[in-house]
């Protein structure tokens, strides 16, 4: 065996091992019953608590008891190519419906056209596509980022009647979620002259980076920041720690609002460290099931379905919601 072959073999084995490690959490329905409806789920895969709750919920909804066989295909390392491959093989296989959570918005036209030619309905979950050609898919089911971030801004306006200096912790630049959350928030907060934006910076959805960013922001503004809007829970929790370390009291000196509504964030809200949590509801398996049944029966559905999301603005509200929080 040549060295090259051996290298290829070892790398191959290792890559398979790595994949196996990454995917142990995913279960694939492999018993193909005859009268089951097959659903191909082109998913995002491991990304964080929100995604996990969302995809587990979908998998728990389309069960064999409900009459479905769900084929779960998560992307490898959030790579769009692996998603397109999975999508194409679902089309070739001739599944009944395809659910798609695209890792990237662009570049789906060809794949969606193939599905259309094969007469396989495609339902977008959470993530939209660009350009948003509604002829290419049946419907998009997702919570509305703009609506959710508007709720945060509305709360900020009412919580700071005398005005405040605020800072925004963003996700990675250029991601559609970030743009939409900025758009909704800025539309309301930007129109309020008493709310002064002292800056915005990405902390890449990370607690650790958010702590480091807020630590510096507080110093560069001489602690004169009364409100921090974190675009996800993790960053909000990092901001809490930075505020505490600067000798200030989160919830009193600096109010922090976050989006997502994970267990950890509601815990912090119950403890008074966060002041407002807007949920971005991942649990829409039931809605998806409903839509799939309608589509298979040949009924018309709206081209966009907004999943309702709750908001939590007090420790009491958080405490009530905490016991049966799924994510």
């Amino acid at each position, binding site marked *: 065996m040549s060295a090259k072959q051996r290298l290829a073999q070892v*790398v191959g084995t290792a*890559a398979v091992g790595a994949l196996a490690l*990454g995917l142990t959490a995913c279960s694939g329905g492999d018993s193909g019953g005859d009268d089951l409806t097959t659903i191909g789920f082109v998913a995002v895969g491991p990304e964080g608590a929100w995604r996990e709750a969302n995809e587990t919920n979908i998998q728990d909804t389309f069960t064999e008891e409900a009459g479905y066989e769900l084929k779960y295909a998560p992307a490898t390392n959030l790579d769009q190519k692996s998603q397109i491959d999975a999508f194409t093989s679902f089309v070739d296989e001739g599944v009944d419906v395809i659910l798609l959570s695209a890792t990237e918005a662009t570049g789906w036209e060809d794949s969606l056209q193939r599905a259309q030619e094969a007469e396989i309905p495609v339902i977008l979950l959470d993530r939209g596509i660009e350009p948003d050609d509604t002829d290419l898919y049946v419907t998009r089911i997702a919570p509305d980022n703009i609506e959710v971030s508007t709720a945060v801004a509305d709360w900020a306006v009412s919580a700071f009647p005398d005005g405040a200096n605020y800072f925004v912790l963003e996700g990675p*630049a250029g991601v559609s979620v970030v743009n939409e959350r900025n758009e909704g928030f800025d539309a309301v907060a930007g129109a309020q002259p008493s709310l002064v934006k002292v800056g915005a*910076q990405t902390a890449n959805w990370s607690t*650790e980076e958010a702590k480091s960013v807020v630590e510096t922001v507080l*110093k*560069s503004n001489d602690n004169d920041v009364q409100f921090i809007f974190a675009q996800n829970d*993790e960053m909000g929790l990092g901001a809490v720690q930075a505020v505490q370390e600067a000798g200030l009291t989160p919830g009193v000196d600096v109010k922090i609002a976050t989006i997502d509504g994970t267990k*950890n964030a509601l815990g912090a809200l119950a403890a008074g460290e966060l002041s407002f949590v807007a949920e971005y509801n991942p649990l829409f398996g039931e809605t998806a099931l409903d839509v799939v049944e309608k589509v298979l029966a040949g009924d018309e559905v709206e081209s966009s379905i907004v999943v309702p999301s709750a908001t939590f603005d007090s420790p009491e509200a958080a405490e009530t919601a905490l016991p049966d929080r799924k994510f």
Partner: protein
Amino acid sequence: MSANAHGPSEALKGLVRRQYFWGIVAIALLLLVNLIKDPGYLAVSIGSSGNLVGNVIDILRAAAPIILIAVGMCLVVATGGIDLSVGSVMVVAGAVSMEFLKGAPDTVGSGLAAIGLVVVVSAALGAVNGALVSVVGLQPFISTLVIMLAGRGLAKVITGGQNTSATNETFRWIANGYVLGLPVVFLLALLLAVAMGLLVRRSALGLMLEAIGMDAKAARLAGVNRRALLFTVYILGGVLAGFAGVFATASVMTVDVSRTGYQLELDAILAVVIGGTSLAGGKFNITGAVVGAILIATLDKTVVFLGVSSSATPAFKAVVIVVLCLLQSERVRRMFRQRRAAGAARPAEREVVAA
């Protein structure tokens, strides 16, 4: 007497000739930019709890994990290798410690036990790298790439795919505590870096590593035990990355399986290169790597302090780094010198002709 007068200036000249001198210049310039924005930037005051508080202290604290992975990377690069797995080793270390502390009582003992566990696990991952490189004879790039991919998967398996938090005062103290008014993380990182520096430069170890990096065959013929040394270097790199992972997670007591240590191998490589270590191997400079790490931390903090928008941040960083690399490049510097020399020479020539 003349020797006395020569001493400091010679030392200064030596420093200027070092590649990491430009790193120091860059740090100074970045600090200066911040100082222009806010004249109080460099001020260090004594906080409420008797510790030093200030932007510079924040920079030192942010630099600590990068210093560790950069020092580890430096040694690996000296042997002509590269370690792409440091970021993933960090997240595994974080996952192991958080998962352990979640179920452990909040005592000094369990904090130390978590660190012990991290050392064992990260050394094991380093050993896998070492084995793939030295025994199997794979390219370091590929071997460590495998651990880089598998490591993050492993961290997800350990934590069940969730970001995991825990509470332990001892563990938290490592990243947030102070000794003599200075942050513990920075002192620990400096201590480990100095210890590594003494270990490799006061013994023949450093020379042997460089020998492997220059010409592995010649080194073997000269009696250098290549296999054992590569093992040692990758294990050291792994353990240092493990400590970096402890620093990163202890700071917020949360391991973020998709973000902790993400792409930090690139920061480490950058720090090493800024410090004057050649990626071709055969030459390394630990002081330089530390300077490089501090530069990266300064750059990160400057971006936030100046309020550079998130979309412009990567470009801002890239410009600083490209300019720095150009300044370091011998060829570019020679070009500048020739130009200046030519500019100075031309009028002289004309005079000669006129005469």
